[in-house]
């Protein structure tokens, strides 16, 4: 017998999914209410052949991979640092975790206006002090800037997970390897990183899920631009349905995004999921 909770969950997920699927086969534009009609695969055809679609795919992947690389390398380094006995460790830990509590819109705005602004931003002021030309981050390196902001937000998460994993590493194993003649680099390579493999897998899986749907940071900083330089799939769906009022096309994009996310998930599970066994 199906339990009520499962039934509720099914409704919860199936109704929106069903509606999205249904809309994706309609010609449904908010500017022309009451004119909805069945169009078959047309929405999909236009979404997939839109040149910005491939830009969006590329941007999405760049964003996800870039942030993963930065947060995992940075997270391991920070975790190693925070695991040391040092003065004021608790305060430093709190500071490191802090960015995670700032909501994405706020942190993106703070970065945009207080750090990266080409006139008043901290970086512009600093380069002014050094006599350099201020760099307009969002004009010249928009995607990298967004990667930087998102990495800053997710670094605490990676650090926290990796730090707990690091603390569960048996001290005697480290001491044994030290007696076996492993220097600090070899200890990192042969003992610490293998121990962290599982935690890194968890970080990759969880972050990928969230990073595929980054939206707020793009909306408040670059609005997907210049051109489509920072438009990812989520933003493209948003632009389609709410900027061009094309709900049908947006829904088709949403369905495509779901399919792609599942492909990525299966791929990830295949590749690194076995780290979670045993």
């Amino acid at each position, binding site marked *: 017998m199906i339990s009520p909770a499962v039934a509720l969950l099914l409704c919860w997920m199936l109704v929106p999914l069903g509606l999205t699927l249904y809309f994706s086969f309609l010609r449904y534009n908010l500017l022309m209410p009451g004119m909805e009609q069945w169009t078959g695969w047309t929405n999909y055809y236009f979404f997939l052949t839109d040149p910005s679609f491939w830009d969006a795919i590329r941007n999405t992947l760049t964003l996800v991979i870039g942030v993963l690389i930065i947060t995992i390398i940075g997270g391991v380094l920070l975790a190693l640092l925070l695991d040391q006995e040092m003065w004021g460790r608790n305060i430093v830990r709190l500071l490191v975790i802090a960015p995670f509590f700032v909501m994405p819109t706020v942190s993106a705005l703070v970065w945009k206006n207080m750090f990266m602004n080409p006139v008043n931003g901290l970086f512009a002021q600093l380069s002014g002090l050094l006599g350099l030309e201020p760099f307009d981050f969002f004009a010249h390196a928009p995607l990298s800037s967004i990667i930087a902001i998102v990495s800053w937000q997710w670094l605490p998460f990676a650090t926290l997970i990796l730090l707990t994993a690091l603390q569960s590493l048996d001290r005697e194993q480290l001491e*044994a390897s*030290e007696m076996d*003649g492993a220097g600090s680099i070899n200890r990192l390579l042969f003992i610490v990183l293998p121990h962290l493999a599982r935690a890194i897998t968890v970080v990759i899986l969880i972050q990928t899920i969230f990073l595929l749907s980054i939206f707020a940071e793009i909306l408040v900083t670059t609005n997907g631009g210049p051109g489509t330089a920072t438009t990812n799939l989520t933003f493209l769906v948003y632009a389609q349905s709410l900027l061009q009022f094309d709900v049908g096309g947006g829904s088709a994009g949403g369905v495509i995004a779901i399919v792609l996310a599942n492909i990525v998930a299966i791929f990830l599970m295949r590749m690194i999921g076995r780290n979670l066994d045993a």
Partner: protein
Amino acid sequence: MGLITLKNVSKSFDDVEVIPPLDLEIRDGEFVVFVGPSGCGKSTLLRLIAGLEDITSGRVEIDGVDVTEVPPARRRLAMVFQSYALYPHMSVRKNIAFPLRMAKLDKAEQSRRVESAAHVLNLTEYLDRRPGQLSGGQRQRVAIGRAIVREPEAFLFDEPLSNLDAALRVNMRLEISELHQSLKTTMIYVTHDQVEAMTMADKIVVLQAGVIEQVGSPLELYHNPRNLFVASFIGSPKMNFLRGDEADRHGAHTIGIRPEHIRISANEGEWKGTVGVSEHLGADTFFHVRCEELGATLTVRADGDNPLQYGDSVLLAPELAKLQRFDADGLRIT
């Protein structure tokens, strides 16, 4: 060579002095056991020798060379940890080969040494397993294997058998002694089990609260304990101690007599008592005898087939020649 000398070595954690300054010499090829109650600083002393803890003052020498500032890796010592500290993500083969790999030995030599260690330790069948797939005794052997492939100057063992069941412990004890006989390398072995200490050691170091109470061969400690602590720590079951009038009669503050040096019978002896609980071990039986006059309960060893029962009245006859006398400070009077 594996001559290890501690000179005036002390260790404090923050303000707490765990080991007051002590001197100790361990000769080449000796099997030395550090024994003492929990928390007395055995592991700390071993870790000081290994270099895993910094020495607060004093110096450690190996073969006459001051190694106080030398990192653990370059002291040419191998350590076997209580938790085995195997690398869980590596196969047994890789675990054993790890020190060789770190020393950048060539591949052929590595596998030759791993094979021969595995052969000695009966691990050949398990070389491709992970530590998680081994039993406790096998893991222990892998840890020992990892230590012997390096051909170190000395082995350090920190309670290596305490996670094993009783039968396996006896086996491994023999294997380690066997290994010592064949390698003839210095071994320092930490335990809180005095039976392990007595059976394995060439030389026992008895520690209490970081202080060396006595150093000597097992039989020396058994026959000539320097003080009350050593007398009560060495020997199983424990030595019986008496104070008061009976001790005064022998001109001592405390007298001690081991269970095996008292004869128990129904009709001859100088101490009257009542049999309490008895422990039958087969070959021997230990009686706990309540002596009202002495105000003490004495443990007495008797033959395994001694028929005395709970509640029987008996007489005890101590072998006076084996009686040990201690003064008010606990030191033995000789």
